[in-house]
């Protein structure tokens, strides 16, 4: 892929629509080999980008979900103690006397459990998704920083493993906590905004071809109007898709104000938000869309 336009075309083939900025971002990620740090509200397609990239590159997606207290043995590698023990017992039963060889065998690759990060280094090519990095601790961030700058891991018993072709790395953050500057500096930064009407409609049409054009237009217009309200949790594209799917499942070819209010639960997940939305004039929004 030689320029951002080609990257965009490939991603759109997979059903993921990108704007100019994101196309340039993906192009630079591939070209410069830098990780991409994605920030934005929930449900705007940060995680979906990684799977789209994997599909576009025809590479496996390796996902590391971060959580509080995650450490190297969960993210990088671990030794399979029960199997090592079993191996020792088996050797004892078989009457193996060659202790040195036995010890060497204990730290063989087959007893190594590769966790996502090591798997990403060993798989070429691959797309590594480090999801919700803001949930991990500072210590883990420092560890990740080291890995992302070298793309190599030293296992004391085996030596250094280096990725000949570094994986494409996508990090996502929901900004519950500021990611450390040193890690940010190593990454390209992209802020995901909610899409405008035309783009969101295109996404709905692409992802849900079974939904009628009219319903897709109406749902998109309603969600865009909802985002204009002061909601605790503005709906993302994921919610738009959910809503369209729900209405389609109800057999609705189009939506009126009453039906919209009845199905609000698939878009708004806070009681306060639902109350505020109920006071909105859905009929007017729908009428403005050439009712």
């Amino acid at each position, binding site marked *: 892929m030689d320029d*951002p336009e080609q990257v965009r075309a490939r991603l759109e083939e997979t059903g993921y629509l990108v704007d100019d900025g994101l196309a340039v971002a993906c192009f*630079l990620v591939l070209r410069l080999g830098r990780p991409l740090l994605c920030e934005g509200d929930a449900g705007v397609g940060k995680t979906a980008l990684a799977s789209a990239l994997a599909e576009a590159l025809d590479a496996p997606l390796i996902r590391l979900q971060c959580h509080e207290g995650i450490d190297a043995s969960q993210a990088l590698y671990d030794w399979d103690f029960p199997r090592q023990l079993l191996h020792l017992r088996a050797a004892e039963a078989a009457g193996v006397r060659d202790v040195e060889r036995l010890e060497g065998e204990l730290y063989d690759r087959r007893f190594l459990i590769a966790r996502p990060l090591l798997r990403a280094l060993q798989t070429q090519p691959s797309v590594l998704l480090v999801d919700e990095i803001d949930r991990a601790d500072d210590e883990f961030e420092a560890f990740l920083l080291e890995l992302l700058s070298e793309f190599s891991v030293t296992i004391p018993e085996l030596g250094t493993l280096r990725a000949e072709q570094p994986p494409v790395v996508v990090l996502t953050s929901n900004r519950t906590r500021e990611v450390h500057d040193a890690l940010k*500096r190593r990454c390209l930064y992209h*802020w995901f905004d909610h899409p405008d009407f035309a783009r969101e409609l295109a996404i709905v049409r692409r992802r849900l071809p079974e939904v009628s054009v009219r319903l897709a237009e109406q749902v998109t217009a309603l969600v865009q109007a909802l985002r204009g309200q*002061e909601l605790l949790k503005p709906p993302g594209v994921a919610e738009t898709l959910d809503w369209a799917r729900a209405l389609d499942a109800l057999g609705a070819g189009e939506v009126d104000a009453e039906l919209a209010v009845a199905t609000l639960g698939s878009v708004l997940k806070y009681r306060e938000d639902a109350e505020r939305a109920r006071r909105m004039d859905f009929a007017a929004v729908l009428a403005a869309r050439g009712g």
Partner: protein
Amino acid sequence: MLAADASLVGFARALRAAGVDASAERLHAFLRAVDVLGAEARADVYWAGRLTLCGGRDDLERYERVFAAWFGPGPEPRAAQRAAPRRQLRLVAREGAGAAPDTGGNAAPDAPPAAAAASPVEVLRHRDVAGLDPVQREQLHRLLAAFALRGAARRTARRRPARRGTVDAHRTVRELLRHGGEPIRPRRHARAERPRRVVLLVDVSGSMAPYADALLRFAHAAVRGARAEAFTVGTRLTRVTRELAHRDPEVAMAAVARAVPDWRGGTRLGELLREFLDRWGQRGMARGAVVVVLSDGWERGDPALLAAQMRRLHRLAHRVVWANPLKARPGYAPLAAGMAAALPSVDAFVEGHSLAALEQLAAVVRGAERA
């Protein structure tokens, strides 16, 4: 190409002056990105810079501004996308140039009667901060700098080796192997404990002016020492955690003074609390945290809004502590409309007028003392 590079380097320098952390490493990435893109087009340079030089959403608006200034306001090919971040960024309190802060408003409280001179430190500990002379103030600053504010402990998902607790299979097996499979005493581990996050909301409105400096120094010590976040509230909400992160209290105070646009204005506690919860609190900052509001509770806005937001905060936070410097005055009763509205959602209501009171506040935050 050299001239073009020089222009890009100059652009990065201008960004740095505007407060974006366009470090050498980022600049290097920027130049490479422009090179890879073969960027002649303005849009390519725009995106290359935005992707490589910015490190957070707060940077984006500054970037837009400096880009327009440096490369001239060009045609806007993606007007819709450019407009979007601006809409959300308007909420960034210290960036906005919107409504002028209210002035006047609440009358400053009278200084309480000064105590007679006695054993210096002990007297100082109990003196109202509002009535100190410069020498005592300096001493107070030194004492405040050594402060620590830890949140109440919380159990984490991580386990640490411990004497008591569940059996740690990994370490036990490892130890077994070391002993050639001979039986050994099982190793144990237990859940680790970590202090909860502490969030400080410091009122810097006119009525709190005599206390603001001391309370911000208190916030400085807290941010330096532990996982604390600090905000100032007045007519605007400003996040000052980063400004307070500097080791030297004087430098940190100067940085805060530059960042906070609404010293000594009025107070819109309810609205600002809502903004805090929308932008930060709900996302996770207030979740399970100990939230400390340092304010006298003079509310110029609607007390009902404040009451609703306090209830929301109370549902999110582990504990809500309210420190009110006026509480120490003889005959004080929480009659201010804002204070009365907030109190039902407050777990602990403490004083905050002197060093001893702040020490007590720290104990309450730590969970050692239930006030």
